[in-house]
């Protein structure tokens, strides 16, 4: 036991949880923690890295990016009031996308709580609906306990964000600090091993299937169950589609990987969802961007749903066999009970859809011979240049869908994107977090001219930290996805989607970031090679076709088989 200030106890407790990086921004009510932090981040005994972002929202997205690629809990440190409210978007994003982060917010001294003191805001009240746990530390004696509990809750079960609101008096008071660990909370028992009965029923149903189809979600990645997934699919010879957040759980070229599900997914997996006889959902939550109209979704199929979150079972789609548990355990338990099977004809039946999509969508998008540059061809060019082995970070919108469709993957934890919340501005800070988590990997960040400007101040963080993020700005001078909807569904009424943009290269230059502008097809390959020649930050601005649209598309509210390849 050692006597120290609460602020120092907080840092010791974080280190005790294995934290090495904090994304943050100082302010009045968190100065004592920053004061203690100085000795942890400078000099010979440096034990923590602090990344100074330019806005607190970016701290949360950076922590998310860090967590997604590393599997560790991301940590943010911000001040009270506006510092805390600026984190709300990132906290909400982490909640809906099951990303484990711990956000520590400063708070006014406890004697002033509830008095509308300067920079006081009810952080716990505001964040309760969008966190797994939100707690106010008012006494230094609670620090070790609360931090340990926060990390256990954030990272266990279905992961998610936790907020610790830390009053200033608890930061400065002295405490006898002793590290603690938390691995049990009696009111919170995350599902782990599935019930035998559920496993038997699932195996029986899957074993009897003639046309089985699997839906792979992020639960596979969060559960580190990629190998178990492949073994399951291989043994029972089951084709699989993936959700946006489940991308990279299987290598792109895996024989049974049949592509991307949902609104801008591939034709095959969407059509086959409504054709299969047994649908096996693995660590996914039947989001409406995957299912579209629920009244016509997979009605012909018996559905098996493997998930760690009991409240997801039957939430959107009625389930025949729910299997509550960590897919790390439930997948091998089911695999063990299955007989090896072959579904050659069924798997081959995806080919006609793949061919149609290639001819009608992919070839003109990725290999156009003339006209303006296409987003898809840029994504494909970068993916090939990194040998399909980089981390992909996206913003939200057309850039995101094009990147998800055409970037390829060899290993898991390679996609960082805002799925559930669809947070524009997510990408740049998330890319910084991702690169800091895995400096040895190439991080390619695709964004649009709208999204990058929502958090463009983070170029300053790149400048200060020298984070080698490769930014590919697909510039069409439009808010492209909204423009696409306006063209398709709102009689071409382009209300407020035209963007007059700054000179992005000059912007990059003022932050000391190398950049290049490409408008011609002939220059693209060379420019991408130039971008990738070293590990330094780089902005590649690509002027793409303004009317470029993302296809295929399931029109909103339609049946997934209404997927179209053109306007």
């Amino acid at each position, binding site marked *: 036991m050692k006597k120290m200030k609460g602020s120092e106890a907080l840092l010791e407790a974080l280190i005790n949880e294995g934290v090495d990086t904090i994304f943050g921004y100082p302010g009045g009510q968190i100065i004592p923690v920053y004061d203690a932090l100085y000795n942890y981040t400078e000099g010979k005994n440096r034990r923590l890295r602090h990344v100074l972002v330019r806005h607190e929202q970016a701290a949360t997205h950076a922590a998310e990016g860090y967590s997604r690629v590393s599997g560790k809990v991301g940590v943010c440190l911000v001040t009270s009031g506006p510092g805390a409210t600026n984190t709300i978007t990132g906290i909400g994003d982490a909640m809906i996308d099951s990303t484990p982060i711990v956000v520590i917010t400063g708070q006014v001294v406890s004697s002033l709580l509830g008095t509308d003191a300067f920079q006081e805001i009810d952080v716990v*009240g505001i964040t309760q*609906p969008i966190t797994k746990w939100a707690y106010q530390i008012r006494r230094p004696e609670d620090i070790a306990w609360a931090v340990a509990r926060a990390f256990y809750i954030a990272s266990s079960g279905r992961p998610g964000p936790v907020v610790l609101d830390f009053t200033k008096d608890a930061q400065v008071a002295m405490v006898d600090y002793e590290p603690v660990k938390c691995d*049990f909370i*009696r009111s919170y*028992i995350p599902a782990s091993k599935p019930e035998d009965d559920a496993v038997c029923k699932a195996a029986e149903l899957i074993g009897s299937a003639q046309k089985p189809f699997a839906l792979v979600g992020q639960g596979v990645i969060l559960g580190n169950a990629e190998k178990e997934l492949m073994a399951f699919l291989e043994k029972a010879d089951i084709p699989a589609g993936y959700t946006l957040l489940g991308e990279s759980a299987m290598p792109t070229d895996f024989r049974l990987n049949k592509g991307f599900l949902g609104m801008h997914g591939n034709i095959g997996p969407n059509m086959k969802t409504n054709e299969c006889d047994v649908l096996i959902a693995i660590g996914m939550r039947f989001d409406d961007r995957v299912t579209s109209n629920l009244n016509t979704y997979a009605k012909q199929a018996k559905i098996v749903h493997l998930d760690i979150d009991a*409240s997801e079972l039957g*939430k959107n789609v009625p389930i025949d066999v729910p299997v509550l548990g960590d897919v790390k355990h439930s997948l091998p338990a089911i695999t063990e009970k299955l007989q090896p099977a072959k579904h050659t004809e069924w798997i081959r039946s995806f080919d006609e859809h793949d061919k149609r999509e290639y001819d009608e969508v992919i070839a003109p998008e990725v290999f156009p011979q003339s006209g303006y540059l296409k987003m898809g061809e840029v994504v494909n060019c970068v993916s090939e240049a990194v040998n399909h082995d980089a981390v992909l970070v996206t913003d939200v919108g057309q850039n995101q869908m094009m990147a998800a469709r055409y970037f390829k993957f060899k290993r898991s934890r390679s996609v960082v994107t805002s799925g559930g919340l669809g947070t524009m501005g997510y990408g740049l800070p998330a890319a910084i977090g991702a690169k800091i988590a895995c400096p040895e990997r190439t991080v390619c960040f695709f964004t649009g001219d709208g999204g990058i400007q929502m958090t463009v101040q983070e170029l300053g963080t790149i400048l200060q930290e020298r984070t080698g993020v490769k930014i590919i700005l697909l510039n069409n001078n439009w808010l492209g996805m909204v423009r696409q909807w306006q063209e398709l569904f709102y009689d071409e009424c382009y209300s407020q989607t035209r963007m007059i943009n700054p000179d992005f290269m000059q912007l990059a230059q003022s932050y000391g970031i190398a950049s290049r502008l490409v408008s011609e097809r002939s220059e693209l390959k060379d420019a991408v090679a130039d971008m990738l020649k070293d590990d330094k930050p780089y902005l590649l601005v690509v002027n793409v076709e303004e009317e470029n649209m993302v296809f295929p598309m399931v029109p909103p509210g339609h049946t997934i088989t209404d997927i179209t390849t053109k306007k």
Partner: protein
Amino acid sequence: MEKRLYTVTIFSENTVGLLNQITIIFTRRQLNIETLSVSPSALKGIHKFTITSYASHDIIDKVVKQIDKRVDIIKAYYNTDDELVSQEIALYKVATDKLLELGSIEALIRNYGIRVLEMTKTCVVFEKTGAYEETQKLFDELSQSIGVLQFIRSGRVAITKSKVERLSDMLASIEKQVARKQ
């Protein structure tokens, strides 16, 4: 889908802010809370919420799962009236002179099973326990005849008709897990 009255029972740790966490889940699904009662349960350190709400079976099932998911909630479940013994309590304040004008207090006591809690020269306070319809019937009658000066009704308290509180089973299994970890 058809709506009916469900009684949601929630056992939780005794921590600050739990009521807020519970009510926002009802709010998101656009459900009104009809009655609410919170008190320490028979098990030390554990609080019990009894909430009634009109909802479809599909929605109440999802709401209760989402409540159960919260970290400090130990167990949440729901029942329909036929599975429960429930009671509410109501207090009525009426003017003493009006009550005396009514004639027989004895009839009131015999017919309605009321208990007089307080009597002054100006007013009388009495209580009645019963189902919502029963306490409401007395209120309606008194309002029409002599007028009610003040009226208050508690939230529902309810006990399932099965033998033991299901929580005790769950706690037993949790204790087993604790023992295994130690």
